């Protein structure tokens, strides 16, 4: 008999096949979720483009414009919003983003607001102060939650609780590549004045209240929008990462099944040969 018995190989093949079925199903689920996440981003994009244009126009049209949202202060305390996933089995998706944040907050006085179960668990185990655990489930965080987070953070920023606010997310480069990244939310970077030649615009726009009031009212909305965009992008990245992880798992399973089938057939052949030899020898 060649090594292992045929029966043993058969059970291994069977278990491998069921694993393959699961990974295949997970891959397909991730692919369909990925499409939905991308559609969400596309739907919400025009909204934020309009908000951004308005913010840019306001800052550009008044020379001596000042808003507490734009003011940079000496940095004592920073706030990190970390978007990770709820579940593993997504390649390096969770560990990459958490590693990046850890390296950035090492020598700072930082507070984190984790979104996603993996992020909550990670920062708890590292004893990093957590602002709130209300958003432990990334899948259930909607646009409304983004707006309430951004309002809460804007208020805390104005009150001086934090001097800088960052969001850490995973940017969706392509189906095969996702990059962890951080972005500064507050203080707002003043939109570049020279990105396009100032259009011949009339400076007679009327602002309800005044321009600073309008600015202060739309900044939290705008931040909520950026946050939602980052969240959607992270979700798309998570699904893409899971899809490719599961894709390679399925391929591995295929390879192992092929290998085992070969072994199985050899073992079967060996058994038959042996039987024939015994019969021939006996007669």
């Amino acid at each position, binding site marked *: 008999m060649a090594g292992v018995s045929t029966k043993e190989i058969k059970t291994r093949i069977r278990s491998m096949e069921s694993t393959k079925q699961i990974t295949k199903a997970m891959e397909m689920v991730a692919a369909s979720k990925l499409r939905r996440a991308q559609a969400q981003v596309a739907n919400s994009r025009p*909204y934020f483009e309009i*908000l951004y244009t308005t913010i840019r126009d306001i800052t550009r049209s008044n020379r001596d414009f000042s808003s507490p949202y734009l003011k940079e202060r000496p940095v004592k305390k920073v706030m990190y919003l970390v978007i990770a996933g709820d579940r593993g089995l997504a390649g390096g998706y969770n560990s990459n983003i958490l590693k990046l944040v850890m390296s950035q907050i090492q020598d700072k006085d930082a507070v984190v607001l984790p979104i996603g179960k993996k992020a909550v668990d990670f920062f708890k185990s590292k004893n990093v102060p957590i602002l709130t655990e209300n958003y432990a489930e990334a899948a259930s965080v909607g646009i409304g939650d983004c707006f309430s987070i951004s309002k809460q953070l804007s208020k805390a920023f104005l009150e001086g609780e934090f001097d800088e606010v960052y969001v850490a997310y995973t940017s969706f480069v392509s189906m095969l590549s996702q990059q962890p990244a951080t972005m500064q939310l507050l203080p707002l970077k003043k939109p570049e004045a020279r990105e396009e030649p100032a259009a011949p615009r009339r400076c007679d726009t*009327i602002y*309800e*209240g005044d321009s600073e009031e*309008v600015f202060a009212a739309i900044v939290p*909305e705008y931040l909520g929008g950026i946050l939602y965009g980052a969240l959607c992008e992270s979700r798309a990245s998570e699904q893409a990462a899971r899809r490719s992880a599961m894709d390679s798992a399925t391929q591995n399973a295929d390879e192992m099944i092929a290998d085992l089938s070969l072994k199985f057939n050899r073992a079967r052949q060996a058994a038959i040969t042996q039987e024939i030899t015994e019969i021939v020898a006996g007669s």
Partner: protein
Amino acid sequence: MTPFHLKIVTPDGLIFDGQAEELIVRTTGGDVAILARHIDYVAALGMGRAVVVSNGQRRTAACIGGMLSVSGGEVTLVPTTFEWADKIDVDRAEASLQRADKVLHDESASSTDIQLAEARLHRALVRKSVASYK
């Protein structure tokens, strides 16, 4: 009446894109009505009823947050949420109202909880009152 081009965009997508004769919305400073050939104008929105008149038809909606901008005769409304009166889920608004009410009567609630509940209560009230216009 002369029509103008109106676009209503929310984070969930495009709600309205077409010609309208009149738009009434509640800004942080009170209700305003926009007609054709309005001067360039920007306002932050409050929470309240919005009315769109297009092709002689009046449609009412609950419009919450965001901003309104008029630029070169183009009117763009970018609210955080915008629901036509006939699409408002009254049961959901009612449930949200109850939930907010409970928090507001709870003495152990934290100040952020109370703020969130107040905002929720306000939104639910707007939705309920707008729903009765359909």
